[in-house]
């Protein structure tokens, strides 16, 4: 900061070298905080993490190079990691197949000129998203409680027996997907709603005059305009699915649920790195996870590109 204030002062007092070069140099000074923190807190740790993923780390100063051993173990042997990936994939499937279509439906609903309560709806649908994962976790411990929970009480009133949402390993994923719906459907729908405002009315009108029915207008005009929104919500939804942490961490009492049914990759990384202190192994999890996310994101982008054509 001293260099910056010095520069600003001298430009005011003397019209020398600085004032001639100020405009050329100032962007670098403007970018300095970003570049500095980026180098120190992103580039360096990313490289460090990469190197560490080829090491066995015991404690904080006992490092041993083990080649691909960490990755090999993760890919071929580590059942818990595989479970975490499958859980992430299941949650992601729930996101793409249930959350996003539902969000689009809600957005279309809110976009209808006949619907009221829009301000209230916007407020309500966004509130879960800005609530911290910890609070959401605590609220849903009460919702999913087996004997005295809100959800089972509601189900009992229509004659459905108690479900062990957090205790029965087969019900953990449905429970988490319900939690996901509550948290993200509204948020995604507001994105779709913003996208819908971008669809030109005269284009829809023209298509209607040409005899296209509502379904065709929706399919051929509205939907293509929503493409960037689809790209955004599926990609963020996917990354979010594999990095789910706070909600299951709270729901399962800092654990991973019955038989790891609530274990997600980022949680596994946390358990390995910070509870078992196997930092090298945890680094390998981080990198492998990143590669998996990048590949899946790439496939998605490719699919969306095909859709465009």
């Amino acid at each position, binding site marked *: 900061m001293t260099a910056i204030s010095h520069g600003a002062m001298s430009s005011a007092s003397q019209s020398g070298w600085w004032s001639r070069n*100020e405009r050329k140099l*100032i*962007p*670098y000074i*403007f*970018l300095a*905080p*970003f570049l500095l*923190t980026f180098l120190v*807190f*992103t580039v*360096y*740790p*990313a490289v460090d*993490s990469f190197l560490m993923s080829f090491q066995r780390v015991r404690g904080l100063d006992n490092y041993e190079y083990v080649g691909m051993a960490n990755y090999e173990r993760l890919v071929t042997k580590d059942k818990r990691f595989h479970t975490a990936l499958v859980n992430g994939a299941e949650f992601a499937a729930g996101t793409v197949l249930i959350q996003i279509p539902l969000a689009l439906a809600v957005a*279309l*609903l809110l976009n*209808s*000129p*006949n*619907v009221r*309560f829009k301000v209230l*709806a*916007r407020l*309500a*649908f*966004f*509130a*879960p998203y*800005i*609530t*911290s*994962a*910890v*609070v959401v*976790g*605590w*609220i849903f411990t*009460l*919702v999913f409680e087996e*004997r*005295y929970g*809100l959800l089972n009480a509601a189900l009992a009133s229509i004659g459905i027996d108690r479900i062990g949402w957090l205790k029965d390993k087969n019900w953990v994923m449905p429970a988490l997907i319900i939690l996901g*719906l509550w948290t993200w459907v*509204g948020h995604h729908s*507001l994105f779709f709603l*913003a*996208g819908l405002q971008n669809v030109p009315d005269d284009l829809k009108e023209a298509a209607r005059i040409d005899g296209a029915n*509502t379904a065709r207008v929706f399919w051929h005009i509205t939907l293509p305009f929503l493409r*960037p*929104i689809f790209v955004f919500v599926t990609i963020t939804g996917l990354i979010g699915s594999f990095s789910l942490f*706070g909600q299951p961490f709270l729901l399962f*009492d*800092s654990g991973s649920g019955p038989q790891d049914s609530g274990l997600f990759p*980022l949680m596994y990384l*946390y358990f390995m*790195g*910070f509870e078992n202190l196997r930092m090298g192994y945890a680094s390998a999890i*981080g990198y492998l996870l*990143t590669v998996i996310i990048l590949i899946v994101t790439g496939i998605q982008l490719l699919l969306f590109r095909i859709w465009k054509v």
Partner: protein
Amino acid sequence: MARKANSSSVTKPNKVNVLFLNSLVLIGIILTAVPFIYMVTASFRSQGELYSLPVTIMPREVVGQNYPKLFDDTHFILWYGNTIFTSSIRTALGVYFAALAGCAFAKYQFRFKRFFFFLVLATLTLPFHVLLIPLFIMMINFGWVGDYLAIIVPGIVGAFNIFLMRQYIESVPDELMDAARIDGASEFRIFHSVVIPLVRPALGVVAILTFVNTWNDFLWPLIVLNDPKKYLLTIGLATMDGPFDVEIGAIMAGSFLSTLPIIFIFVLMQRQIIAGLTQGAIRG
């Protein structure tokens, strides 16, 4: 989750249809609101009532003991202050730095500009968890574990914020900046007295987004903070059933109080917040 859209109603409104659509929206609102309402009402109930049948949304007996218990048995008020402190500092600095960087990208020509912008986009896509372990080790080496520097400094210049600021600052007319230059203003002066005043609403949006994110952050504070007195709200709440051993009613009281400012900010600024958030996605 009985929400369905009937898109045909957009063109031909009839009474039954309109009623149907509106009740769907209302059901959606109620389903979203009930868990929040339950959180608030649970904070006024005894443990005995919460774990007994029948399950009701409203308290059968209103009990005020959860709030004093929360304040006496935990460091809740301390956590509240800590969270306000760290979130505010991180927001103020983060917004300022993001605006600086955004201004560089929007208003100046320089070497490596494209490369630097590529770096910004790259950090947007790089998942944070890759950095978790080495960043923690770095915090140990810096002696920042248990210190708010670990919360405030890493990642203070958010890539998404730079991205947003760049888009907003692009709309500032070059003529105004040039006029100030002719008057002999330094580039910093132009930034502070021409650019900043014109993008104040955008700064507000970026500030709120940063503030809410910091307020709600859980994993990183969980890793780097170790003194219960220095905890932030999220970690404090998460550990309440452990070391502090308070009842669920008090936990709900804490959850409610910790969510209040965020909801309040959102009610005041919802239009701007949603516009700011969705802008990036729409442009693709």
